[in-house]
């Protein structure tokens, strides 16, 4: 068979010939011969194997995800532990009765943050956690602090709507100048005197005023 194809084609590209040969060989084999006999046992085995492989792969994936999640959870717990105060300090705080003040959530967060900052100072002195030493002081969060921040935000809102970006506002100087120009007795624009001028500068300004008036022959010297 191989002989016949080689002799038929003659000389040419050897590699492609080989490839083509192989292909033709296979095709020829599948065309001419009866299909290979595959054992039922073998096929059953391979099918089951592939199913098992798929299941295994699924289980492995789940395992890795579970591992990841477990690791994350541990990490978070550790972080949380780091943020909280040592247990005995917490016990002491719990012992004092809780006052029913309506402190909104933001206040509690601020308190927690403050406590977290102080934690670094407390860690090395675990036995003496009760007496807070060195750079620490515990103060109650006054209700007014949050009220005044709300108040300040509200005032900022009003300020921004009245005088903020996009509001077309002028100065009082312009207002008074417009009144002068449009009024019954028309006058020049308003100019506020600069009271911060020193006496020397003020005298200079007065002298130049007088000179200008004289120049315009408005007053007689």
């Amino acid at each position, binding site marked *: 068979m191989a002989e016949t194809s080689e002799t038929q084609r003659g000389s040419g590209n050897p590699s492609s010939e080989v490839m083509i040969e192989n292909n033709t060989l296979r095709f020829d084999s599948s065309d001419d011969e009866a299909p290979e006999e595959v054992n039922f046992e073998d096929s059953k085995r391979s099918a089951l194997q592939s199913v098992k492989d798929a299941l295994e792969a699924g289980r492995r994936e789940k395992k890795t995800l579970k591992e990841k999640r477990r690791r994350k959870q541990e990490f978070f717990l550790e972080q949380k532990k780091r943020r909280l105060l040592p247990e005995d300090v917490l016990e002491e705080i719990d012992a004092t009765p809780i006052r029913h003040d309506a402190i909104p959530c933001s206040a509690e967060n601020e308190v927690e943050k403050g406590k977290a900052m102080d934690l670094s100072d407390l860690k090395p002195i675990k036995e003496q956690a009760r007496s807070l030493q060195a750079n620490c002081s515990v103060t109650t969060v006054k209700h007014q602090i949050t009220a005044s921040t*709300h108040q300040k935000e*509200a005032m900022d809102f009003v300020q921004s709507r009245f*005088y903020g970006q*996009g509001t077309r506002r*002028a100065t009082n100087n312009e*207002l008074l100048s*417009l009144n002068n120009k449009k009024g019954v007795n028309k006058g020049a624009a308003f100019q*506020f*005197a600069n009271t911060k001028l020193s006496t020397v500068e003020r005298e200079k*300004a007065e002298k130049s005023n007088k000179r200008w008036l004289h120049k315009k022959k408005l007053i007689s010297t």
Partner: protein
Amino acid sequence: MVFSDKPKKGTIRRIMGEFKVHRVRFFDYMPSGIRAIAFNRQTERIAVGRVDGSVEIFTLLYNLFQEKVIPGKEQRSIEALCWVGERLFSVGLSGEIIEFDLHNLRPRYTIDAYGGPIWTITANPQGTHLAVGCEDGTVKLFEVLEDKIQFERNLDRKKGRILSLSWHPSGTKIVAGMMDMIRVFDVKTGHAIHRLLVDKAAGAPRDQECVVWSVVYLANDTVISGDSSGKVKVWDALTGTLIKNHDVTKWDVLALSLSQDETSLVAGTSEGTVVQFQFLSSVLGKEDKEWVRTRTFKNHTHDVRALAEVDTAIISGGLDTQLVVRPLLEKHDIKSQASALRKVQFPHRRLVSCAKKAQLLLFQYPSHLEVWRLGEGEEEGTPGEKVPVRRIPEKLLQLKAKGDEHICCSAVSPCGEWLVYSTTSSLRLYKLQYENNNISITKVSKLPKVLRWAHQLCFSADSSRLFAASGRSSVHMVSLGPEGCKHKHTFKPKNGSTQPIHLLTVSENGLWLATANSDCEVHIYSLSTLKSHCTVPVYRSGVTAMAIHPTKNNLFIAHADQQVFEFSIELEQYTDWSRKVQREGLHFKWLERDTPIMNVTFNPRNPDHIILHDMYMFCVLDQSLPLPDKKSQFFNQLTLKSLPEQERKTHCHAFKVCKLFQPLMCVDVLEDHSLVVVERSLLDIVAKLPAPVKQKKFAT
């Protein structure tokens, strides 16, 4: 070229007529902007809330007069005021509802609403409930009880702050103006019935929400809103749709007020204009009425934040600190004092005290006091001439008030050695000592227990006693001496009045004390017998100024409707001169003046002279001259000057008015017979106001 329009600080002494005049322009009085106005129909009074937290009660009867002032506080902000019967409530950005005690002029109690800053408060027409609109988007209902208010419930909470509220006249529905929308709530269930969306302004950036500054709910189920896009929108609240859109201004519409019969609405804008809408039909006689824009009033230069439409007038106030009462001319039949435009620019109380012997002035600011010594000028000069100043006036002392409450009243003794001031919760007395050119101040620590606070303070002429007006129209008298301060007596009125005193005056000889309270009552007490002496017959208008003559011991009283009376204390009746004035009547030019008389003082050289002043003039009233004839010229000082001596005598009349110095805050006479005139320029006040809107005018 620089025009120095601000007057130079200093006293320019002029010699005018027979007086040397100290002209004082260094009192930097700065009023506070008006934030809210509430009208009480039953008592015909308006409550005006200012930006610094103070509340003023004005009466509209018998001329507009500032009856009571509740001083402000540092952290207190007032966003809205509301009357329930005769009780006054206010809310502010501190998140608290305050009820004011109008007899003792202080907050009665405060309740925290726990909703964040509160923007608005309104009472239902039945007077049983209050609704407040909070920053967190809740409308909270409070029940009004006998002596307090109690939280009832919240209506449904919505996202976005509630800036304005209005009840339906039936009390079953509330409309709330929020950011970008208006919601109509059913009060019983608390659920929102409708959501009306408001368009943003045409040129505004996408993330800038439209603020609905004000809403009103009418009985025919119409809602009218004013928002920051400058539009007044008329909505149908039953279907939740927009009926009509009126473009009023390029800036914001900040306030709305509805008349009682719901036919007229006024809208206040950032430009300072007040626009009136009326419910009219376009064709006369037809029934299809709609809201039509009718009049525009421009009485303000800065934003109008507060409006009230009372029956016959429109009252507006804003950031230019002036309270303007614009009567509606169609409601007045005749042109009279009642139909004139009135502006309140200066407070109707004295903020300047004068130490007559020591030549000192005490200026009362909200949070501090200043003591100045007046300058001295050359001795000689001709009338009408400016005298050069030999020693300039100097500020001796600046005393900051303790705590965050504003100062209610203050006084300095005539000898200049004692200084006292009071807030709503504390009274402090100081002793001043002068060594060479230095001044030292020591606080008097052990004060009598009765001196906890005072509405009004006054020293006796010899500086040995201090009088403090306290609650229930009573006056405490304490003696002052090197050993300290001792309580001597408390004077109480016979009729047991509960109103606060706003004027106190003591006679020069130290025998008589006169008080005037908000009920227009004037009581006279004898300081020798320590008993109540008599009561002046009650006149319908409030007392704006009064003083006791040093030699004749007659009490001269000036009222808010410009009437003047003279009451003889010893004889317990009106004097003949006073009866003559009442018989002949005062000249119409005198009665037409629209600012009240703020101070009455006497001329030591001439016992017939009485010196009065209001904001635009001061007048020397000569009791020996005849009263002006109705037809004669009233302001005749300039014409008299031009007449020869003989003719002058025939044309002279009692009221010698001088308008050289204006605007006036105080006119007083010192012991050396010189006059002190304290002026405050309105332009200086305008220069320090916040920024107005930019107006583009043709050819400027």
